[in-house]
């Protein structure tokens, strides 16, 4: 069970839109913006408010890549693997990140909850390939060496 404040927040967000089923996606997007993940309890709660089944809400939330039921690290690193980045060797960037952060295959968040690594299909910054973003801040023309330096810098801030 989540703290009451979570439900209050959900109510506040629902009030912004309305309780028609069509508002489900914008509402859970705002919830995710607020908490940086989508607490499953809130999805159930919102489904009730919008008068749709929990199964329906779950099917929508799991269909879209952007929704995450798991908590994310302090720094969310998104590595672009769009065509332009891929051609300019984005795979080596991802490999180095996994190595630096000691992440196993299939694991996205470090145990200390500091880093989450994700790939995205295109950030639309193809002119700077390969790119990655740290909490939406763009880092251009990355190399494995720059990745190591970046991680060290971010660790140093904590």
């Amino acid at each position, binding site marked *: 069970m989540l703290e009451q404040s979570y439900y209050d927040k959900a109510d506040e967000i629902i009030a912004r839109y309305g309780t028609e089923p069509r508002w489900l996606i914008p509402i859970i997007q705002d919830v995710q913006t607020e908490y940086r993940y989508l607490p499953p309890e809130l999805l159930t709660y919102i489904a009730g408010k919008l008068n749709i089944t929990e199964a329906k809400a779950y099917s*929508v939330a799991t269909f879209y890549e952007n929704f995450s039921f798991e908590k994310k690290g302090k720094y969310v690193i998104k590595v672009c693997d769009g065509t332009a980045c891929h*051609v300019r060797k984005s795979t080596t960037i991802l490999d180095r990140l996994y190595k630096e952060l000691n992440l196993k295959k299939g694991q996205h968040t470090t145990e200390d909850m500091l880093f989450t690594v994700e790939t995205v299909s295109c950030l639309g910054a193809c002119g700077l390939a390969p790119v990655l973003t740290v909490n939406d801040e763009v880092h251009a023309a990355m190399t494995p060496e720059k990745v190591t330096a970046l991680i060290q810098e971010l660790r140093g801030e904590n």
Partner: protein
Amino acid sequence: MLKNRQDLIEARNQAKLAMEQEKFRILICAGTGCLAGGSAKIYDKMCRLVKDAGLDVHVEFGAGVAHGENGECPSEVANAGGVKKSGCHGFCEMGPLVRIEPYNFLYIKVKEEDCEEIFNTTILKGEPVERLLYEMDGVKYKAQEEIPFYAKQTRLVLKNCGHIDSEHMNEYLAIGGYSALEKALFDMKPEDVVNEILESNLRGRGGGGFQTGYKWKQVARQPEKIRYVVCNGDEGDPGAFMDRSIMEGDPHKMIEGMIIAGYAVGAQEGYIYVRAEYPLAISRLKLAIAQAEEAGLLGDDILGTGYSFRLHINRGAGAFVCGEGSALTASIEGERGMPRTKPPRTVEQGLFAKPTVLNNVETYANVPMIISNGAEWYKGIGTEGSPGTKAFAVTGSINNTGLIEVPMGTTLREIVYEIGGGIKNGKEFKAVQIGGPSGGCLIGTHLDVALDFDSLKKMGAMIGSGGLVIMDEDTCMVEVARFFMNFTQNESCGKCIPCREGTKRMLEILEDIVAGRGTLEQLDILQELGEAITDTALCGLGKSAALPVLSTLKLFRDEYEEHVVDKKCRTGNCQALRTYKIDPEKCKGCSKCARNCPVGAISGEIRSPYTIDASKCIKCGACQSDCPFGAINVE
């Protein structure tokens, strides 16, 4: 609030006058590219210099950051003529870019410490800072318009991007904004507007190239009176960013196009669906909509005509398939974004099962100029079957990465060599992938074909949304095919079996091939599967999912066979097919590689050359990336 035609004309004249009174305009690009290069700091510095000198100068900051976030210039500067922000210039490779009007000087790769020199030399004396000018083949170009990258382009849709402040509607009004809407509302009947677009033969810029006017006509004649206008801003093709640049750099143009569409088909509401990865485009659009509402160009009784139109924004949530019409409307309705069987088509039953006009960003951005200049003018640009221009995002192994716009019918050679400045690092041109995961490849023999919707289709490719990824001799085409199939497979919504299962099987085969486990029979199966998916998949994305594979299989069959028969990848891209060797001349015997090797495949004695046991090697590359002497090579 503009209440009638005269008010709008008056507002436009005032905005124009205000713009003409500015002595200088300093336009600093803050597109995603230039911003990452530090253009925000340049903006701040320029503001300070202008303020300290107490000059009547205009600094504009390009699409990238909303004013507030990055600090507005001090109000005294704003009052003295204004310090503003503009849109993406498109020459992303050379960023950060600074343009200075009225000279039209374009400075490239500008740093914060260059600002004083720019200020002292150009603003105070009117002379160019030579070292910041673009140089090619020994020639320095002062004016932006003379640089080959720009000179060879025809920028109509992107005309204002980088030249006006996208966050102030007055800038758009000053250059004649909303005059097409004025013409449509006051001088034309809705059916005249439909006919003008039909006559212009404007074709959808989102991929299929379907006639826009025909769509509008069909919606306009539906018996159902509640109709919608929807804009597809879900630019999901990796390697494409033209729609983002329009939404960020010139949002009012697209909004004007949508209002005209609404008027033409009798719709009262419109939706813009923007992918969540473009937060800036979303905030720019929101701002532009609020400005248009405040001015009375959106809302009830627009300019006293009795016509009402409202616009809403929906954020995507990360599903590529939502670029497909029926999936996009399902997503706006709050459902899983899955395509449905057609008919009924979107024009009959689209959003909320009502007749719907669905076009993409670039298509709507074409509408105002067609209405202003007429269909005949429009048909004079481009080719007979595909009039107008097309914006392309040119990326990959090319010197001038960026956003370009050329008339339909331009050849690939002109794009790659004249505008794009040739292949990066002097490498050999190998192929260009056009149209992303739904497109195909073009090779050297296609360099002189005039590119338009029909010629590309004939070559087994498609224009898609206009992403052009240039590949050089170091790119493995089998790996590229695997890359796209991996993408499509991930993004397949799973509704129809050909796409859900077929792409999975194709991906498995491609993974086998790049891992050296492929067989010749598999190449035939790949072909057969690809054709079957193309014939039977439910939606446009499924139907084109196999195209990258079929296209490379046709053009680069020798490379596929090399992977399968010789177990070799000529580019060294396919890790499993590499052989790592230590160069005994360069190896100093430091033993670092042996310690790094996870499987103990490297042995030797300290201070004499080490060797790799190929039978144990798992080709992970750990030895090579850490060798301090660069002694480990891939064969």
